[in-house]
């Protein structure tokens, strides 16, 4: 219990610092960091643990974002109390979409899921572009926003906590071990009686659910979304965060999300003209990392696994 108490105190004090000493710009960046972290966790679950390459997380995010935004604006009449309900619905719909997509993808060995998820993102984008009611290419405006910082902050931390804990528990459970077995050697796993396609399908559905949650939250955070906010480049950005943190390391994803959200903001002042230098730095980072340190910052391990055992035992962290 002690560690959760420590965590809660830390979160509240960070919230106080953010709320009273820092301006709304930094607060907004902090919230985007949490969105990025949720998305990276979601991707890491399927790509890191199950070794299935998804290139369409932006599409799942878009499903969550549009579902939540439309629900809140059209049916809940802008009640900010009901935002969590919309976000949950967004997650569920994304999970349904993810499940449907996973049906054809895991029938063959190979990287078909990469291209099918890419296709999903593209199909979602095209449908949204053609859906006049939500603004088509102009985007969807005036979405219910969070009333104040504390609501947004608390809800974001809550979502991140739930996402992380769910995934971590799954990672150390029998299900996570199944995924690991498939990751290591799928033929051996099949011989041991694992239903490979089914396990991968479940993993992808869970991952999609959290991607939808992240998207739903994102729409209320910004108050404006358009099909362009969920392009291929967003999928790539999520991928880079997950890879940098280490595929399979959930806490690594959160760490990498922090680095890759705050660093570009710091570099904003040295940016050259209208060119987005990030899009040059990201791919170079990605290629160099794959050649020099393919396991990312933390590999498969969690950050706290690097803490010596004695200290961990004192803090009550057994795993």
């Amino acid at each position, binding site marked *: 219990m002690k560690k959760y108490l420590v965590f809660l105190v830390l979160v509240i004090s960070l919230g106080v610092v953010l709320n009273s000493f820092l301006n709304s710009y930094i607060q907004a960046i902090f919230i985007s960091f949490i969105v990025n972290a949720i998305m990276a966790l979601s991707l890491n679950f399927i*790509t890191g643990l199950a*070794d299935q*390459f998804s*290139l369409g997380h932006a599409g799942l995010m878009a499903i969550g974002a549009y579902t939540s935004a439309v629900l809140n604006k059209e049916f809940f009449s802008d009640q900010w109390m009901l935002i969590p309900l919309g976000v949950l619905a967004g997650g569920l719909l994304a999970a349904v979409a993810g499940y449907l*997509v996973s*049906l*054809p*993808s895991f*029938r*063959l060995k*190979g*990287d*078909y899921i*990469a*291209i*099918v998820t*890419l*296709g*999903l993102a*593209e*199909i979602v*984008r*095209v*449908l949204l*572009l*053609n859906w006049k009611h939500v603004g088509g290419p102009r985007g969807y405006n005036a979405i219910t926003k969070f009333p104040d910082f504390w609501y947004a902050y608390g809800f974001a931390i809550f979502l991140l906590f739930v996402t992380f804990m769910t995934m971590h528990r799954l990672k150390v459970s029998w299900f996570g071990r199944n995924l690991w077995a498939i990751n290591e050697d799928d*033929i051996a796993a099949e011989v041991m009686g694992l239903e490979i396609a089914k396990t991968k399908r479940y993993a992808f559905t869970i991952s999609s659910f959290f991607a939808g949650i992240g998207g739903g939250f994102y729409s209320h955070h910004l108050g404006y979304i358009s099909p362009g906010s969920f392009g*291929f*480049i967003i999928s*790539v950005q999520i*991928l880079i965060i997950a*890879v940098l943190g280490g*595929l399979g390391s959930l806490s690594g994803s959160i760490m990498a999300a922090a680095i890759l959200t705050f660093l570009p903001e710091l570099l904003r002042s040295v940016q050259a003209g209208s*060119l*987005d230098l990030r*899009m*040059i730095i*990201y*791919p*170079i980072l*990605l*290629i160099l990392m*794959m*050649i020099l340190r*393919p396991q990312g910052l933390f590999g498969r391990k969690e950050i706290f696994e690097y803490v010596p055992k004695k200290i961990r035992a004192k803090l009550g962290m057994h795993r």
Partner: protein
Amino acid sequence: MQEFLQHTLNGLSIGSIYALLALGYTMVYGILGMINFAHSEIYMMGAFGAFYTARFLNLDTPSVLNFAIGLLGAVSFAAIVGFLVEKFAYKPLRKSPKMNVLITAIGVSILFQYGGQIIFGADPKSFPALIEDKNLFSLFDSPIHLTDLLIYFVSFASLGILSFIIFKTQTGRAMRAVSTRPDMTPLMGISNNKIISATFVIGSALAGVAAVLVSIKYPKIDPMMGVRIGMASFVAAVFGGIGSLHGAVVGGFLLGLGETYLIGYGASTYKDAFSFVILIIVLLYKPTGLFGQTRKEKI
């Protein structure tokens, strides 16, 4: 009838371009087992290769000779880029997990897209008129353009050269051998690395041909031009059965025709999603594609 014929002719010309690009995807997949996401960017580089060749040599009058020079520029530039990409990005990862190679391929693809925007500029450039577009004759009242005929001719010639290389030469035999048993080929005195390089060079050269053919028909080129056509061609390769050369060609033509009919009879805004819908249907009902074979795995 006239409209239908027109759509068919257009579909055949876009289909032959898909076929050329799908061959590049399928060859690399067959030999390395990876999706070469950078292939669409090599295609883009081919178009810019032809553009700069024409610019530096002042090829501003349309003629067959100038077209041939532009084509040569595109093919050699694309082949060099493909060779370098393989050498510096994929070769160091020959022994690492497939996931890492895929991530690298994505990285290379984005680097070329955005690096291209810095080097060439993000705005579309108008491709020089290497060949005059005129109506040669009419077939059932639908005009036959010179560019369309040229596209058919050049792509069929390239397909012929490719099938000669693959099925009649030593290199082609070695390529087929490496794609079947890469562990055995070194024992037969074949250098796998050289053969893989050759595969990339040939696939990239085909992408260069496709780039020039597209550019003379739609003379606007920009660094992002490869994204959509690349995805569609990849789908064509999967549709035909990835790893199968004949499949890639057939898949390319079928996809090109289908897409053109869809645009021709309304629904043009859904064009971008069409190829992926096809892909999902194919994976559902015939996951190996039209000509693909399932290989039994031996342990």
